[in-house]
């Protein structure tokens, strides 16, 4: 299992579009990918799941990756977070 903590800097927070793009990226990996915010978890491959966390600017999230290709997944998805959110 791999984890990556990230604080959202985008002032709009995790809006629908970035949530969708993120889900798309995540869906390309076979492993289980979860986003955790304040103890609430959501499947990172699902746009509605991510949106339901209501992640706002300045909030801390944890990306949790488990299973096949987790190394690649955490690397690519954490880069996505840093570049887009």
């Amino acid at each position, binding site marked *: 299992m791999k984890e990556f903590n990230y604080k959202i*800097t985008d002032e709009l927070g995790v809006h*629908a*579009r970035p949530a*969708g793009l993120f889900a798309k990226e995540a869906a390309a990996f076979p492993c289980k990918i979860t986003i955790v915010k304040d103890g609430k978890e959501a*499947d990172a491959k*699902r*746009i509605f799941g991510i*949106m339901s966390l*209501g992640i706002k600017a300045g909030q801390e999230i944890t990306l949790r990756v488990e299973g096949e290709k987790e190394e690649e997944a955490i690397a690519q998805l954490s880069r996505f977070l840093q570049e887009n959110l």
Partner: protein
Amino acid sequence: MILKGKSVFSGIAIGKLSIYKQADNQVKRQKIKDTKQEVQRFLNAKEKAKIQLMELYKKALKEVGEVNAAIFEVHQMMLDDLDYIESVTNMIDSQEVNAEFAVATTGDNFSDMFEAMDDDYMKARAADVKDISNRVITILHGSDTSDILGDEQVILLADDLAPSETVQLDKSKVLSFVTRHGSTNSHTAILARTMNIPALIGVEFLATANGKMGIVDGYKGELIVDPDAAVLAEYQEKKKEEEDKKRLLLELKGKENVTLDGRKINLYANIGGVADVANALSNDAGGIGLFRSEFLYLEAEDYPTEETQFTAYKTVAENMAGKKVIIRTLDIGADKQVDYFNLEKEENPAMGYRAIRICLQQKEIFKTQLRAIYRASFYGTISIMFPMIISIAEVKQIKEIIKEVKEELSKSGIPFKECEIGVMIETPAAVMISDLLAKEVDFFSIGTNDLTQYTLAIDRQNPKLDNIYDSHHEAILRMIKMVVDQGHKENCWVGICGELGADITLTERFLEMGVDELSVSPSMILRVRDCIRKIGLS
């Protein structure tokens, strides 16, 4: 009959009212035997919906730009959401119901979830979920939404309009949008702003309004149904004025601020927050001549962090895309009070502990702001100016602090650019030593409001003295001239950012004096430009 609502875009529209009827997507629950085939029917409809959305995305891209078109991309992603698909297919499978019913129920459940979130943006997404569900249902029904508008231009009334509905509308037929629901973040609102037409939300109109004459007053947030002749005439007059203004805007946009004999002057905008930038740009500001940073402090409950400030400054610098942005550092005190500063009550606050005086005594507040500004400088062209200056010693102290800030940033490897440094000229003292100040700084910006108050010794908050508060007083005009002359001797450019800057009865005088820049409220830019272009100095 006058109906109240909330305006999301100002302006006036006069025309026939037309109630938009949503495509009839009544869904009946039916028992299905072959659930496998029904699931396939859903999946096919979903794919077809995605193709439609792709087409809509392309259409919207051309009509309303990428930012507003993005929603159709999002809708495609939503249709691919596994939770959504699983919910529909499970329902068909386990309850043996038709696809239409499963989609409608799922759509309701998901939109309820968004509706319940404590975030206005997410709440508004409930409409998106309903929208994608309706799209799939329409396809399942085998019906297509056709254009509902006739040949006449109308004021469109609706419960709410989904983004796909607004894009499918023939925009040339819509004078204004009025909805019962919707939010200031809703797509109808955004679209109205993009189309530059008035729009209201939260208006409880009656079905009987359909076909009647109506007026939308986007300034007051009112819908007037069936106005009498006098009201109609009044609004026709207002509308004409508005159109004249728009014409002026079109004629003057992109034109130079140049007199008949070729003298140019910079025309910048005064803004009080990030949200004003759009207004500055749409009115063709050449830059931001006064960015009042107070809003960051006034809106907060505690000292705004470096990060918050950085984000605001960076956003403005980026949006102005290389055009000059002059940030005025904290100008709290006097008539602008903030609780957490715990300022003592003063007998004479206008002459008290305020602006740069606070910054130089509570250096940490000042340094936080300067660090944020310098970090943001990397993303555009930022200049910094300091309010309420009365002495050279203050300027030297400021420069010392700036030096510290820059050294700290360099040490941490944080990129920044050099910024032009200027002072506000708003005290008689600053005027009298402007020759000395000019040697220390890159520019002056004359704050005529305070300068008038201090020079004439008139409290500008006292209405009894309004009759002698004369901002055209010869003393003020001479001071401005003096500052321009002293500044120019030392290659210091001189601007005016007070209210006098927008006073078109003085524009010619200022040009004669050699003022280099006028910074005015965004809505005044084109009027001042119009004035400048009619002046011949020689």
